[in-house]
């Protein structure tokens, strides 16, 4: 790829999704865009980008952005947040709002492992006496990732990353060489395609928003914008969950560390007044 082609990818990703694509990581760009070029009938990435430049076709542009936005995910990633959810956060939220559902949103769910980890946890809690009602929602920028997530179908490698074998045995069915989550787990989640930088006014309010390891791949401007909007999405007593070591721009203005878990934040009340 030449410098002009790299610059086009960087600018398209920044403009459409606030993504920060490092121009020196051409190997990453090439590995992500080669399959996109092939699947759209181009012989090379150069041909793909030439078509973007001359025809400005939205589906092509979004195919590039979605490919560059794809993040790493796995079941029960980092483990600690899920233990904290089960043992502390969900019981506390249920106590503080008796009679109504606890609403949780995975804001960039990729292929679904994060929200399904919660869905399995919630399903197992449901059999306990006095279990709270919990509503799960998930969204992603990528249509391809969302389709995969909704299907709930994973290969052997994916189900061996982070997923305890007892949960595999309890919540999955084997189909040929793949593993599919049972319908009772899949049906717990509502899905939507959402571009986080395009405005979140219509998304509603949530008690917990998971946005782990997402902002780290965005420009500083996009980080500030998304965080200021998330401050209006997280309910007054709610929480934002970021990656364990994430410190995005604008975090301190909109949110305050909640304690108890690295990456767990509460909305800054002062920020609400300022906004």
């Amino acid at each position, binding site marked *: 790829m030449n410098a002009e082609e790299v610059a086009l990818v960087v600018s398209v990703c920044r403009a459409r999704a606030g993504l920060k694509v490092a121009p020196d990581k051409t190997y990453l760009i090439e590995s992500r865009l080669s399959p996109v070029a092939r699947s759209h009938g181009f012989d090379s990435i150069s041909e793909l980008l030439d078509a973007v430049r001359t025809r400005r076709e939205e589906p092509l542009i979004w195919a590039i952005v979605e490919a560059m936005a794809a993040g790493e995910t796995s079941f029960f990633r980092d483990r600690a947040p899920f233990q904290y959810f089960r043992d502390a956060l969900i019981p506390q939220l249920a106590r503080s709002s008796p009679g109504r559902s606890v609403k949780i949103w995975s804001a960039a769910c990729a292929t679904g492992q994060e929200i399904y980890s919660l869905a399995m946890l919630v399903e197992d809690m449901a059999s306990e006496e006095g279990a709270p009602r919990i509503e799960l929602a998930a969204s992603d920028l990528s249509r391809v990732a969302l389709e995969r997530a909704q299907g709930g179908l994973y290969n*052997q490698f994916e189900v*061996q990353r982070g997923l305890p*074998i007892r949960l595999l*045995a309890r919540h*999955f069915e*084997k189909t040929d060489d793949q593993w599919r989550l049972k319908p009772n787990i899949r049906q717990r989640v509502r899905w939507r395609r959402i571009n986080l930088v395009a405005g979140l006014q219509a998304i509603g309010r949530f008690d917990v928003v998971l946005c782990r390891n997402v902002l780290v791949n965005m420009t500083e401007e996009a980080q500030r914008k998304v965080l200021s909007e998330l401050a209006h999405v997280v309910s007054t007593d709610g929480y934002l969950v970021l990656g364990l070591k994430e410190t995005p721009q604008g975090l301190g203005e909109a949110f305050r560390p909640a304690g108890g878990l690295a990456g767990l934040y509460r909305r800054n009340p002062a920020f609400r007044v300022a906004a």
Partner: protein
Amino acid sequence: MRTCLVVDDSRVIRKVARRVLEDVGYEIAEAADGMEALAWCRAAMPDAILLDWNMPVMSGIEFLRRLRAEPDGERPVVVFCTVENDLAHINEALEAGANEYIMKPFDGDIIIEKFTEAGL
């Protein structure tokens, strides 16, 4: 130092598992079938056992049932590592007392992750 018994009739698998587990601080013993593994356990019960299913002389599942009936046989964390990748085998292993289960092919990261998952 924590000890792990690697039970597999494939010398290559034993070698790979040894390398992975030694790197994270385990002292490794090896057995090529369930009977040999049982003798090891009776002599010195390990902290963990990485266990193949299909082996000559005594299978992994037979070994596990006998192990759990031994004095102190409940103590080792047992992680199956096998080509048997269907739910029937997984459930049979869990009922016999397995703590975790790796489906081959595997890589070193999965062994470490599963050992962590099993509380090691």
